[in-house]
């Protein structure tokens, strides 16, 4: 594959990633949110694969495979299973002010691009300029965590944030050393398990997964 094609493809995938981040921001149904998360993982895996192919880096193939396994198959499966067990599969969250959230999101994208502009100019890698997109999707996921009132969407936001970070790692730097990537993947997996335990604890204690019930701890 000639270089220019792969660059175009990666750029396309990057914009898809950002688009999915926006879609997640406005998605009310928890089930669709998890599916969007799986799609984001797939996009991530594809872009890693293309970077691996065009720069001919062996270890990136592994991380592409790892992403596919963990973020497209295992984590969404775990989340779906949890939803079934907790019986909240068809939950719909009432989101207020989607337009405002979207506008704030656009602001975040502009902010990230500005922040990343001096760095992008330094980049000689085939994927220059993508660091802004990666930062934007990290911040968008963070915004999603802030605006949600239910536990599950917050966790999906947390995992989506990890996706954005991973994209930054592959696009800007051709991937971190494999041992670090494995460590991060392990952390994410354990975190998901612990989140699962928490869902049950929260529901047992508060009778719902709505974390707006949690407002006991305050400084007057």
């Amino acid at each position, binding site marked *: 594959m000639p270089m220019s094609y792969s660059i175009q493809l990666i750029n396309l995938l990057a914009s898809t990633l950002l688009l999915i981040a926006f879609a997640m921001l406005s998605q009310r149904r928890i089930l669709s949110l998890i599916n969007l998360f799986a799609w984001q993982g797939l996009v991530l895996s594809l872009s890693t694969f293309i970077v691996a192919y065009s720069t001919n*880096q062996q270890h990136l193939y592994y991380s592409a495979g790892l992403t596919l396994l963990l973020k497209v198959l295992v984590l969404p499966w775990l989340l779906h299973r949890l939803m079934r067990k907790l019986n909240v599969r068809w939950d719909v969250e009432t989101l207020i002010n989607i337009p405002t959230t979207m506008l704030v999101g656009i602001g975040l994208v502009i902010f990230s691009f500005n*922040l990343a502009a*001096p*760095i992008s100019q*330094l*980049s*000689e890698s085939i994927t220059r300029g993508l*660091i802004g997109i990666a*930062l934007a999707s*990290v911040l968008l996921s*963070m915004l999603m*965590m802030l605006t949600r009132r239910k*536990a599950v969407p*917050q966790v999906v936001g*947390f995992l989506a*944030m*990890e996706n954005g*970070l991973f994209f*930054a*790692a592959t696009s*800007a*730097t*051709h991937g*971190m*050393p494999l*041992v*670090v990537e494995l*460590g*991060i993947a*392990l*952390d994410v997996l*354990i*975190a998901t398990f*612990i*989140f699962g*335990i*928490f869902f049950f*604890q*929260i529901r*047992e*204690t*508060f009778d719902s997964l709505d*974390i707006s019930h*949690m*407002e*006991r*701890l305050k*400084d*007057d």
Partner: protein
Amino acid sequence: MIDLQLLALLLTPLTGGLLLAVFGSRSWAAELNSLMSFCTFIAAVVLTVRVIDYGPQVAFSEQFFIDQFNVFLVALTAFVAFTTSLFSRPYMRIEQHYGKLTIPMLRLYYSMYQMFTLAMLVALTSNNMGIIWVAMEAATLTTVLLVSLYRTPASIEAAWKYFILCGVGIALALFGTILLYFAAERVLGEGGTALLWTHLNQVKGELEPTVLKLAFVFLLVGYGTKIGLVPLHSWLPDAHAEGPTPVSAVLSGLLLNVALCAVMRSKVLVDGSLGAGLAGDAHFAGNLMMGFGLLSVVVAALFLSRQKDIKRMFAYSSIEHMGLITFAFGMGGPVATFAAMLHMTMHSLTKSAIFFAVGHAVQKSGTQQMENIRGMMQVSPTVGWGLMLGTLAILGMPPFGIFASEFLIITTAMHDYPWTTPFLLIALGIAFAAIFGKVQPIVFGETTARRLPHQPALIPVFAHLLLALILGLYMPPYLADWYRQAAALLGG
């Protein structure tokens, strides 16, 4: 040789964690926990002696790096982890006796306690900035279920907040690490070595300053969440107040230090990179740290007087002290860096001693609300004295060690940044009035407390306070030398 010593240090808590995951529900689990912590402490001492004798070392094909700076934290971490395990033995039995904890919960606690020690030791000794991140995240993961151990609504809320906020914070730190790698890759080339701190340290002058500046902002905000710097601190009082007291003691005394160590590693690189450039902002990282530090000291002091819960109050006191340490590291220079490290040691020893005493005081009176804890001196002079002396020590009263380090920090601030002195002095004054005014009636006054079913372990309290006292009165020359070398490594 160094490989073996390091292996012993890391394998002991790992073995302990696995053993306790299996045998944690046995009646001797608490003793096993203390034994494993003791072995870890011995391994740490052996390693420390080695580093003092032979200087900085790398191990396991450079994946680990031990120098005077982190080995002192390793020794401190292992020591406090050991004494806390001694304290937790009767403490957790009493909690179990009152029906607050079940056997499976205790098993989780013992196992995670060892794993948490492991995560902190890896974070301290790793040479790989990526692995440091992984270990920091692992430290959160191992403690989050401990914060919610009691399964009360408040503790679950605290744990959730801790998990989410530290998760977000640490994600920012990962972005910072990626940016660091991005800058390093251009100098060191792709592959394993570009995240190794020792390699980065050699080429720090060639790293791109703009990228490193941005990376440091992300790293400071990310790890700063863990340190509990204002305005990223809101998880800390909740987690400290709602978790079991031994967990509060290690979170406050140790985890915050470990996060600060990661920040200092990054600061050395950023300072090197900016110092070599033509830009006039060589003190960029230091200024940021001073700003966050000063804000934390002032805000925490203001919040102190409004606290009603005793553990919450001492959690705010931790924020205040971590702010002071961050501020001192930010000022840089040999004296301030020396003082910051001394303060780290003293704060760990004193704060964990206070939490031990507070833990038993709370058990005796059955509440964490300060207005209902009264007359500790009457019912148990040791708890009363422990709390009183600990409070005096943490407030910086001579002759305890914190007085020495605070004195050094403030005199340096007066000399280098005079405008910060009034803020620091007023904040320390407010903190004194708030904490002392609240602890005084707890210690003296009429009692309402009850007897405990198990003899509380108060030796750790007095051991810590005695150490803080000795170091405040007299610092052995070799120890001072050690601190000085460590300060020099941090570019002081």
